[in-house]
């Protein structure tokens, strides 16, 4: 159904399907909305002469696909996730540490001023 990939899939059914790319498996399993492309339209868009010589449908292969460390969000995003907000309310701090703090054996109280 167009634009309605809201159905949540069983990952075990998708895991080894050769015709579904791993990136797509993760999207479907997480029930993320997949935007349908407008490939069905018959009208060809006008193209610049410069675009004629450009390679199409070429995947970026320069990326290192054999790396050890995962990719992390930017430092700003991480700071927002794990730091208290400036307005003296520690809601964001709470959300970032909410699940994590229970894992530390000596979790501190959030309102500790020390």
């Amino acid at each position, binding site marked *: 159904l167009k634009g309605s990939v809201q159905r949540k899939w069983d*990952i*075990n059914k998708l*895991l*080894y399907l050769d015709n579904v*790319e*791993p*990136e797509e*498996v*993760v999207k479907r*399993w997480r029930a993320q909305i997949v935007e349908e492309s407008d490939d069905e339209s018959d009208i060809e868009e006008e193209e610049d002469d410069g675009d004629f010589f450009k*390679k199409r449908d*070429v*995947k970026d*292969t*320069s990326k*290192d*696909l*054999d*790396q*050890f*460390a*995962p*990719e*992390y*969000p930017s*430092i700003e995003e*991480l*700071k927002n*996730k*794990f730091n208290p907000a400036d307005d003296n309310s520690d809601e964001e701090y709470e959300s*970032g*540490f909410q*699940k*994590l*703090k229970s*894992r*530390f*054996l*000596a*979790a*501190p109280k959030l309102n500790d001023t020390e």
Partner: protein
Amino acid sequence: MSSSKTSMVTFEGHRNLRLRLVLATLAGIPIKISKIRSNDMNPGLKDYEISFLRLLEAVTNDSRIEISYTGTSVIFRPGIIIGGQLTHNCPVSKPVGYFIEPMLYLAPFSKKKFSIVFKGLTASDKTRDAGVESIKWGLLPIMEKFGVREVSLHILKRGSPPLGGGEVHLLCNSLIPQPITMHALENPKISAIRGVAYCTRVSPSMVNRIIDSARNVLRPTGVEVNITADVWRGENSGKSPGFGVTLVAELKKGWRILAEGVGSPGSLPEDLGERVAYELLEELSKSVAVGRNQLQLCLAFMTIGKEDIGRLKVHKDQIDDNFIHILRDIKQVFGTEAFLKDGANEPIPGEEDFMTVSLKGIGFTSASKKIA
């Protein structure tokens, strides 16, 4: 498995090249990898991949490598893993961790003990490959869980980018027929955070600045934070100035989760310490007993274990495209499939964020034991 031993496994692209080659070596089946960067401006294998193939050839007996004229396809017919004493000069495009990491998959199943000296960069700011401390504190404890206990990694010289000049000695005294079956189903508590901040050919104050900034970020965790300063001077400090940090969260029952970073030219040590500390928190928030960078080794050892089902609890955020690529590669080489059980279906509260990976071992036996 008897029929698959004669056939060739084929892959396309340069993804997980080392893993695919190592799995094929363990399985003893020939492998063909084609379309390696075939659409790239610089097609074919890179210098470090060629170097890795040469290393693989050196630690095995009677392996044959065929590389096409353009370098975009390679056929590898693995021989028996023999190990032994050797020195490998790594190109400066990759740190030594790139070469050491796959050797950990082979070393315990070798005919002779592995004793390899790797020369080159001990860390790199350009790539996201494993640093020496990451392997020592992150991967060796995982191997211990599978019954591989006597593996050590010694830094003889540190070598920072761009020129390197480092030396690292990998020693594996533990030769086992197969890994033991592992069941990691609990969510272990974090008892302490440790780490090492190092520098070569720069002022020792750099490491103190890294340590201070990392400690500031990690202080609210409330656990003991102990980061060691490791300053290298003179001949043993390689050819270039540099600094870096590795932070490790110690979990109960011997599990470790880590993050690491290397300073780039012109970057501040404070920024590095802060960034790596936040990355460790991020990794902890997305992990159970094993971090994302340890999953590959864990899944590979579960696969080549005894003919029993091993189980590993993972966070749902750990299930990404890379995780699926690893499982598909394992299936293609060994024919075994993983099953994921959703924690949301469990009656226990708080399990919604987790899944359990069940993987049946293939009953692998090391080549040396087969001959004996």
